[in-house]
């Protein structure tokens, strides 16, 4: 061993750690890019969901906060303006021409104007929005309980999910519109609302005007903004990428309770 050529010990350990981890990480990264390994990893998400529902209960309530807990501003994330000609037209008229249509596996398909929705009994809640990225913000939301709309359109017995179609395009040239889906347990949960007010004012464009979903026990990407229609389905396998949501199609979990 040539002692005089020996690098300083700290450097030696750093290099050893870096080389070892490069080999292991190279392995981990090729596993991540493989077809089969992510399926193995994601195979437990159904177990996680079942355990969470068994522990916390399907009807458990998310925490509601005091006025003083509200974040100074509610951050906008993801799309902050759909920018399509149709959406620009709605903004110009204060959403007078906008209608929320609800269809699919329902007995009474219907469309609602914003005035009709605002005339319905509302729920107000101060809740925490947990983003998948790790941050959170607290705000006051007012909107129509989704359960009231279900009562109006009457989903058929075979309906299992509510799919929310949105006005914001995620792809270039107004393609690849955002969408999300939740199961009927969440759809009838008392805290699941279509919010039209944020912090006592009309929902701003940056936060999803005129309507956004609040599904309080799940992460932020489930809270679809700029909702234009709701479809009740028995499966979302034939919609877009087939995973039940825009981010789900990019590899995020459909059940976003953790």
């Amino acid at each position, binding site marked *: 061993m040539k002692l005089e050529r020996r690098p300083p010990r700290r450097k030696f350990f750093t290099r050893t750690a870096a080389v070892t981890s490069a080999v292991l990480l190279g392995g*981990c990264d090729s596993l991540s890019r493989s077809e089969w390994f992510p399926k193995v990893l994601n195979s437990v998400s159904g177990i996680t969901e079942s355990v969470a529902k068994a522990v916390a209960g399907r009807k458990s309530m*998310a925490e509601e*906060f005091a006025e003083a807990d509200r*974040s100074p501003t509610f951050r906008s994330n993801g799309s902050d303006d759909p920018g399509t000609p149709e959406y620009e037209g709605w903004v110009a008229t204060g959403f007078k021409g906008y209608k929320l249509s609800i269809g699919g596996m329902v007995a009474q398909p219907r469309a609602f104007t914003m005035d009709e929705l605002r005339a319905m009994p509302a729920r107000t809640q101060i809740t*925490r929005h947990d983003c998948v990225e790790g941050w*959170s913000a607290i705000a006051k939301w007012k909107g129509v309980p989704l359960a009231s709309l279900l009562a109006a359109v009457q989903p058929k017995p075979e309906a299992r999910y509510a799919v929310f179609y949105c006005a914001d395009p995620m792809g270039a040239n107004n393609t690849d519109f955002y969408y999300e889906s939740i199961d009927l347990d969440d759809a009838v949960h008392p805290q699941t609302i279509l919010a039209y007010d944020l912090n006592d004012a009309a929902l701003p464009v940056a936060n999803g005007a005129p309507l956004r979903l609040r599904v309080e026990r799940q992460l932020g990407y489930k809270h679809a903004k700029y909702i234009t229609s709701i479809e009740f389905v028995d499966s979302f396998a034939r919609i877009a990428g087939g995973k039940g949501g825009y981010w789900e199609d990019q590899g*995020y979990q459909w059940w976003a309770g*953790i």
Partner: protein
Amino acid sequence: MSLAAAPALTDAPPRSYLYYRHKLPVRVMHWINVIAFTVLFMSGLQIFNAHPALNWGKSSYNGKPPLLEIGARMGANGEPQGVTRVLGAEFDTTGFLGVTHGANGQLQPSAFPSWMMIPGSQWLSMARSWHFFFAWIFVVNGILFVLYTIFSRHLTRDLAPSGGELRGIGASIREHLRFKHATGEAAREYNVLQKLAYLVVIFGLLPAVILMGFGMSPWFNAAITGWVDWVGGRQSARTIHFIVAWMLVAFVFIHVFQVIITGVWNNLRSMITGRYRITNEGHHEA
């Protein structure tokens, strides 16, 4: 130190012999834990990378600045600069935090360097998939280990320090500071600091890191509405999760250091085959 634990030693103990130190379940669970913890830590850093800031309170945006924030900005020389802010103090951490070496060796904005993370480059959804898969292995393995320690009496026999040992803690600290370790028959037992370290990790840090992980879950938060506020709020839970994870890494470093200085091959063999060599040099540590 007492030799009372040595088996039927009527005459002088043999100079050197192997004894069965770690039972098979302990060895298997130890190495499963090594793999699971490594993946959890590295994928956790990748998840942290999506929002490299730690706050205290019920939300991130509560009018108070983050306790820790890692970011990147353009430096005066036109090169990207890694900036780390801790409790208001700002540090240039280019090269290891904020602006770090990517998989191709180039400097790029990323809170932690590529070699510390799974996956190596920005990929939140995949990091979550790794994290939540290995979290199951980690938790199930941990529960089985705790049950094993109780029912095999590994806990009471080998891990729980006696009153006498606790009173001798000062001497043990002095020995550790001088890197002096028990040899001969005395090395058959864990020393008091070692026992306490294992107990703190098994019954303190590991349950804490798991519980704080649940504290970030909006669904588990609804289990007992508002429980996460007992530790200061959801963002506090995230901060504690991060700090405890690093405390566990510190434990691993000390643990591996002790393994190395007290006979790396003997220790490694004992955690692989179970057999630990006791060498009696003719004199014992007092």
